[in-house]
């Protein structure tokens, strides 16, 4: 079976201006969402306490709130988590309060109200304010280090303009995924950062495959009597790798979809970030990485090879 015909020749780069305009608009929206609406940061980054409990009887949200009032947690944020019997309770850290006991007090309060054997502790997460700050900066640095590491590797294997094209595409993907999280108000947690780094690796993987083919075709092109325009060579390369790009994205999306649908509530946001990231990453390796690389033509290179080649031209 073959869905993508071997002689396919879509003029992707002909649409690069439109694509760039769309991307610029989406990036702008994403950035303004991130800056003005902000992110729904999870307790990993804000600090705080999260308690997930399972009730073995039918309970009303209002009863849960009532049960927490005597302990002073009447204002806690309550949320159903996957099913009506699983409830998430979130409390912010308070200045000067020994926060690690909050979860104990919450569980005690629930046990007192409903009877201890009706309430099952599923999960307790507590992040102190300082740890939250540390995780925030660690997450940011992780993304930056990865970008730099990749920049150097691609520069070493290809050239600087390729590296910049790849990094531009990755940055594009990350900003859009974060923008989607802001738009939907989904919780931005540590696993989501892990998903971002994975998206980053994936998107790059995609880009590298295209670049690899471009490099190969550039070499072939140079040997020709009448070398073609770079842009045509790039477009041809994208078309040649199109079948692979779509197949791989398809199989990866298949498994991530399985993760999203069957992986359970805890991994849900993580899988969602991957889904969005893989879709955007596929797009960006075609419409962002290559055009950016092309637009930097002649800006960063004049290697000996190129000079020789220039001289050899009539």
């Amino acid at each position, binding site marked *: 079976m073959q869905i993508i015909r071997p002689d396919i020749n879509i003029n992707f780069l002909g649409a690069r201006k439109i694509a760039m305009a769309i991307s610029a608009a989406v990036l702008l929206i994403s950035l303004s969402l991130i800056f003005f609406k902000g992110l729904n940061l999870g307790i990993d980054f804000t600090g705080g306490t999260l308690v997930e409990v399972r009730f073995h009887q039918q309970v009303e949200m209002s009863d849960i709130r009532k049960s927490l009032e005597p302990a002073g947690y009447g204002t806690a944020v309550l949320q159903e988590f996957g099913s009506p019997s699983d409830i998430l309770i979130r409390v912010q850290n308070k200045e000067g309060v020994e926060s690690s006991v909050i979860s104990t007090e919450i569980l005690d309060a629930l046990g007192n109200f409903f009877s201890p054997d009706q309430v099952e*502790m599923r*999960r307790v997460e507590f992040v102190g304010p300082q740890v939250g700050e540390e995780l925030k900066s660690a997450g940011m640095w992780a993304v930056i280090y990865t970008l730099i590491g990749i920049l150097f590797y691609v520069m070493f294997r290809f050239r600087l303009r390729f590296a910049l094209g790849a990094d531009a595409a990755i940055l594009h993907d990350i900003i859009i995924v974060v923008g989607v999280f802001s738009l939907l108000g989904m919780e931005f947690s540590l696993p989501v950062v*892990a998903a971002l780094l994975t998206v980053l690796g994936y998107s*790059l993987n995609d880009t590298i495959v295209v670049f690899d083919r471009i490099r190969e075709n550039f070499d072939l092109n140079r040997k020709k009597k009448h070398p073609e325009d770079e842009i045509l060579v790039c477009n041809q390369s994208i078309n*040649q790798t199109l079948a692979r790009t779509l197949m791989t994205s398809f199989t990866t999306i298949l*498994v991530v979809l*399985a993760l999203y649908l069957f992986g359970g509530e805890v991994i849900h946001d993580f899988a969602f970030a991957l889904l969005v990231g893989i879709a955007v990453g596929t797009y960006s390796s075609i419409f962002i990485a290559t055009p950016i690389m092309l637009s930097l033509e002649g800006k960063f290179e004049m290697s000996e090879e190129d000079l020789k080649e220039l001289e050899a031209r009539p």
Partner: protein
Amino acid sequence: MHAYARWKFWLILTVLIGSIMGAAPNVMTSLPSWWPASMSQPMNLGLDLKGGIHLVVDVDIEQVVKQQVSDNINVIRRALREENIRYSKLESNATQVTVVIKEVADINQAEKVLKAALNGFTMEAVEADTLVFTISENEVKDVKSYAIEQTIEVIRRRVDALGTTEPVIMRQGDRRVLVQIPGYQDSARAKAIIGQTAQLEFKLVDEKGDLDQALQGQIPADDMIAYGSSGQPYLLKKRTELSGKDVAKARVSIDPQYNEPAVSLTFNNQGARQFDRLTNENVNKRFAILLEGVVQSAPVIRERISGGTAQISGSFTPTEAHDLAIVLRAGALPAPIKVVEERSIGPSLGQDSIDQGLSSIIYGCVAVLLFMVVYYRFFGLVANIALLFNIVLIAAAMSMLGATLTLPGIAGIVLTIGMAVDANVLIFERIREEINNGKTPFSAIDGGYDKAFSTIMDANITTLIAAIVLFQFGTGPIKGFAVTLSVGILASMFTAIVVTRAIIVLSHKNRKNIKELSI
């Protein structure tokens, strides 16, 4: 292509057998006795899968340094007294001790004596009669790292007393300790037991001093005020007669007077002697037992106690008494600690995560397997064999490396399944291209593998870079994701390139005149 190296075939077979054996402990309940020891361990499950308590505690190491500095006041006092050098001021702050000598003439002698007496301090004569001792950076480092080690030791003894299996207690960064207790549910109790400083002190009650006046601020020079658990004040001598260090044993007993749980202490030799002297000299006076600076009880000494035992009572519940005995036995923490992070997982959530993780692996896998066969026919089947091999290899590598599988780690495996076939997609698409360019089937296969190789390397190495950064940055579960992703990428390079090629070559070997490939 016809000259397919035989050793590759044997390599693949060895890896296949090895990985099946390495992965076997994860599915088999019992293994034959001849099974190699390095292959008998199943994968470690992370706390998020098997449930348990994960705490990160912060050790107040500044406090330890401060203590170390102020402890040296006694050393200085003793040294000066021995030399009959009088001083007018002797005080300390966080890092320095300041001594003001009364007679300027004594200063040289004092310098000499104190220099010999104090280790790890630098001395500076700031004025004719004033010496300042500053704790050296090396000493600070030593003190801090000793404090962390001691904290780890004490926490380990306490956690062991809870009767849990395989707790993990290790240093994390400069001043933190990671505590993981798999399979333990009672997070409140764990935190209480780990977090208690267990500072036990015996002090005499100042019977002559005026408590009321002291409460108004006129505290006698060698006295201090402490409060009981219900708030009643006591005027105590500052001097600590006995402390937790003097305790050899602690166990739960019943206070015969009130029939309540109490904790019986047995002192070590030195402590017993000291307690004997204390009780002998202070009959009919009271002494106070303080825990974490709170007066638990202040009994009257009726007679000399020579047996070296004492009892702490103070309306404990049985669990409280039991836990107090645990922490007293384990010894005091060198500095106060604070829980700064907790991630505890109940057993039912852990099991749910395993089930859901497994089902997403199965569904994801089946979807990919089906797709590959439909799309690439025979070659797809070969890729599928390699994919299954890949999963077994990941399981074996994880088990044999002693790596920990976490929920995000399962996600990493799922993702690897998607990405492992990528290498095959790259190769197969390339083979198709070669065929379209008019190559013969065999040279198309060779060309496809050779040309796709550098692409696969580049693509996978960049993903590895991301995984390595992830490992550096992540905490527990995220690290697990980075590990499975890395292992998966490496395993997939082997299975997707070497294994598929071997199968394809061997299956076409005896058919000389192939016109068309099933791709």
